[in-house]
């Protein structure tokens, strides 16, 4: 009875999954729900983020807006949505209030929803308040294997915040993204302290044994000059 056996096996498998997940949530002490790096896909009014708030590009940025718009034909102003969102985010301390998006919609002459669509699509547009330093920990599988969760835990513990929360002094917030740096839990705390003191940490990898994104201890492959791609010998045809 292969069908019965298969069914039984599947049931057993399901039970294992349920059991293990129960244990995990038990030890973690909180219901582990899937967490996304991005915030909600809808807007909730708050005192510092609501459509009634007036938001304008600063005079210097207005020059930049004109310059950005000049890159595109006048009937395709909507092409400027991403550069303008970026500009607005820079102007507004690293995040985009809804009124800034409305202002961009007005500038590029589209319905606000078209700007919201773009802003919600890209995770690097922050639609809720972030700290002056927005610290992002990699959430991909390779980094998880190499201990990215420990790094995040160290950060959260050191700063005393939850994910996507801003510290009381408004300096730091922690989020999730794809990999950029190579750090250790110890090193992130050091970096945070450097930032708090107003120092600029070195950019790129924080592992002294690596050169940029190269492997630890120097290159192991691709040591010779790269060969040109093989080409078909046309004369032989």
């Amino acid at each position: 009875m292969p069908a019965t056996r298969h069914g039984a096996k599947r049931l057993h498998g399901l039970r294992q999954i349920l059991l293990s997940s129960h244990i995990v949530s038990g030890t973690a002490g909180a219901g582990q729900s899937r967490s996304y790096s991005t915030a909600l896909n809808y807007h909730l009014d708050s005192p510092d983020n609501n459509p009634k708030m007036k938001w304008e590009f600063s005079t210097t940025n207005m020059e930049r807006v004109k310059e950005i718009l000049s890159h595109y034909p006048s009937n395709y102003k909507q092409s400027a949505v991403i550069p303008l969102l970026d500009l607005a985010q820079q102007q507004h301390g690293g995040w985009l209030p809804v009124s800034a998006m409305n202002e961009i919609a007005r500038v590029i002459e589209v319905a606000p929803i078209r700007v919201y669509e773009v802003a919600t699509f890209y995770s690097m547009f922050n639609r809720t308040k972030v700290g002056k330093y927005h610290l992002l920990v990699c959430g991909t599988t390779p980094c998880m294997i190499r201990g990215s969760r420990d790094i995040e835990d160290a950060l959260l513990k050191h700063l005393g915040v939850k994910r996507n929360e801003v510290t009381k002094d408004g300096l730091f917030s922690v989020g999730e993204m794809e990999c950029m740096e190579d750090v250790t839990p110890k090193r992130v705390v050091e970096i945070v302290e450097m930032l708090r003191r107003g120092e600029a940490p070195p950019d790129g990898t924080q592992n002294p044994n690596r050169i940029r994104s190269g492997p630890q201890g120097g290159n192991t492959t691709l040591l010779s000059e790269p060969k040109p791609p093989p080409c078909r010998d046309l004369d032989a045809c």
Partner: protein
Amino acid sequence: MGFLQALRRARPLLRSNFTRSRIASQWISSTTDLRNPEAAAAAAAEPAPAVPPRNPVGGARIEFANPDDAMEVFVDGYPVKIPKGMTVLQACEVAGVDIPRFCYHSRLSIAGNCRMCLVEVEKSPKPVASCAMPALPGMKIKTNTPIAKKAREGVMEFLLMNHPLDCPICDQGGECDLQDQSMAFGSDRGRFTEMKRSVVDKNLGPLVKTVMTRCIQCTRCVRFATEIAGVQDLGMLGRGSGEEIGTYVENIMTSELSGNVIDICPVGALTSKPFAFKARNWELKGTESIDVTDAVGSNIRIDSRGPEVMRILPRLNEDINEEWISDKTRFCYDGLKRQRLNDPMVRDRDGRFKSVSWRDALSIVAEIAHQVKPNEIVGIAGQLSDAESMIALKDFVNRMGSNNLLCEGNGLSPQADIRGSFLLNSSIAGLEKADLFLIIGSQPRVEAPMVNARIRKAVRASQAKVAYIGPSTDFNYDIEHIGTGPRALIDIAEGRHPFCSAILSAKKPAIIVGAGIFGRKDKDAIITTVETIAKLGGVVRPDWNGLNVLLLNAAQAAALDLGLVSGPECISSAKFVYLMGADDINLDGLPRDAFVLYQGHHGDKGVYRANVIFPSAAFSEKEGTYENTEGCPQWTVPAVPTVGDARDDWKIVRALSEVAGVCLPYDSLAAVRSRMSVVAPNLLNVDERETSTVSQGLKPEFRRELSMSPFGVAVENFYMTDSITRASKIMAQCSSTFSKK
């Protein structure tokens, strides 16, 4: 230099192509078909007799604008001729193969994001999304191969991955595309063991209920809102598994066409809020009928269960409403259950109504009708009256010796001699061809949303320009507001206005005059001015008649055709007023001692002044002819039984005529219609638009002063225009929600 070298190198190859073509071409292509497409096509066409010719899906029609544009493709080995530019999916439809789809909709732009329409195309490495793939000559499309089936099964598994298993409590159940197609392509179990995604429900207003967890992100609603309804509220937010349809900010969908997203949603994500949990669609009886809430005559299906109208859905009619209907049409049905008159009633001395039998009521009315002078009898047809009842009313009043007959909304001294002067002459579908619109004193968005949808379609498709004269109002396309009153009209007529050059350069200009101006004293002068503009701009030509009047009410056109053409001034001397569903006529001038008979289906404004009430059937309960604003007569069909002791309007008039001793010579609907054919034969040609052949030039000249007062608003509240919609709770909710702003 490099190019020359390359050419030299390539030369041996070129030469070898000619000399040793067999080997060389084998190097280019591996199959014999590509080497010799004609022979391959013939070979593929050969087994065609084995495949019986199939009928196009859903009556898909093809038109070849140019015979050169035809090309042949093979669908499952069956050759079909299609015009160039069609997609693979359309080619399959022509060939009679129904391709499963979620995101593709023939009236919306192509998104290609559901991937359900995957088919196999010969020599394509992967299955292709047929909705977005243009068909190419000689393409061999395979729709029922294992590859196509497996691809669709894979897509279906992904779609069902996050779809909740709440079909038993879902209102879409039984008419759900996902449910139907999962029967064909779905597995009986899923391999997905994670948690299903859930999405916060959105508030889209009092009409559309959302259960966003059921959404499969086909974006039909987003495209509908953007393209057809013209309200850019909905969008696709987020990405990946967090993707969802929403408005981002708290925003209800303020469109008069919002109900259509319920129909186009292939799953149960957007359903009707008033219909929620009321009935299952397989319990309902569908009756194909006509909408009467505006003058467009949208084709509808009335779904009823027993004696109750449960919901109203649109019916496809390319010439009138395509497949959309307005929210008023769709959701006015609960008005049919409220405030109904179900017994004949007579007002007592104390001012209260008392139910009486039909016999008593008829004899009281007949007695009073004979006590007044003949010319003191006035018959007023309401805006929901059908042609049969109006001809009966006209015959009755005429036999009583009076010719005071009017239909509300037709204003002072209506001109009915030339049909072209009160019809939408370019036809609703014909408006699509226009490249310039001049809208005079009309707010098409609230007066006739389906006509407005056509104008918007023309504006979107061919960048037609729209100029508007009237009070400032909402349009869902770009307009040029060139004035508020007759002043602008005179300027255009006398060639002073910058708009003149636009109308002169337009190929197919269309002028739309709102029926709201019928109530103005200077109506004739306005019409004359408009005709001058039409003459100036070449609006009326043998091949194009762009001079249109947009009527407001379902009864108006038929009333004018049947000759109910008195002005409301006869009310001031009336002693016996026969209100046949007329609620919006101004009775202030009526003498206090006048007798008012109200015959209608709702206890609305007309009842306040009535002395006797005759209950009659509403449009959902009777068979009647309604002529729409473009002059197309259509029939309503009874979907539910009448309420209480109510009768059809024409039967009541017929009965009253007998009691009054002026018996009308018809006893059946067929006999009424044959009488109608004597007065207005065009009303018998159902579903055929009869254009006016009489030239406008025959019209007598009017020399009247134009008043300079600006045009008014004909429809104050879109959601409440007649007795049915005023009785409707849903419409009341809508008007309070949408007029809040």
